[in-house]
């Protein structure tokens, strides 16, 4: 029995459509996996930086200040992997990142003879607040972009 050219074409078409659908699903899954890894990594950095930032403001250890700046740089690299991070003034994620960075490195950051803060100082509490807001925003962006 011979298969008609119509059926052959239809079968070929079905194979191509199937391949496209599968390929799209794979790409979507990979992008989502990549996004999840960027978000998890960003959150890990945010936790580390806030801990070091708090410790720096309580001890004024210069080495910690260096590590905070360096890791903020790395955190921004991770956040840049999340779509729509770098769209300037309209990016909530960028704004939260800046507020978090500033909560640690503003005013007397790296200033000689700056006072050692108490762990309950308002500035320390603000670091935790800004960190949490950044982490919430990271998760919100993940849901927006990848769900």
């Amino acid at each position: 029995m011979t298969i008609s050219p119509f059926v052959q074409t239809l079968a070929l078409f079905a194979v191509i459509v199937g391949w496209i659908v599968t390929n799209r699903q794979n790409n979507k899954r990979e992008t989502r996996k990549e996004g999840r890894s960027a978000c998890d990594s960003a959150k890990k950095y945010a936790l580390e930086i806030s801990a070091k930032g708090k410790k720096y403001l309580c001890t004024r250890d210069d080495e910690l200040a260096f590590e905070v700046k360096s890791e903020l740089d790395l955190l921004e690299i991770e956040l840049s992997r999340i779509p729509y991070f770098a769209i300037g003034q309209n990016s909530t994620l960028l704004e939260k990142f800046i507020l978090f960075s500033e909560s640690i490195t503003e005013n007397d950051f790296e200033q000689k003879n700056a006072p050692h803060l108490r762990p309950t100082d308002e500035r320390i509490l603000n670091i935790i607040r800004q960190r949490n807001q950044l982490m919430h925003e990271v998760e919100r962006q993940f849901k927006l972009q990848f769900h």
Partner: protein
Amino acid sequence: MTEKTIVIAIDFSPSPIGRYRTDSETSGEAFRVDHLAPALRMYDKVTVILDGTDGYGSSFLEEAFGGLIRKEGFTESQLKNKLTIISNRISYKFRAWNYIADEQRRQPRGGYNFALA
């Protein structure tokens, strides 16, 4: 038209630290007074490249860029015409311009630049 490019990591220091000279010789104040403000007075266009350093604290960025208005007498509109800030990290660029705008708003008579509206 005269132009000047300042690569902070090469022309100033790969480790910018602190706000004032009393904090460090590589502070925001030292950068502004010794490099940025003189270049802005001498050249028509100045480009500052922030990449290649150990990173910047807000204290450094605010003193270097906000200080241009607070202590060097520039206005935001002059800086918008003369100054270009380049960085791979968008937050540095955004923060530097924000400190300039914030300081302009704090100036007497409002300091708003209506020419930009």
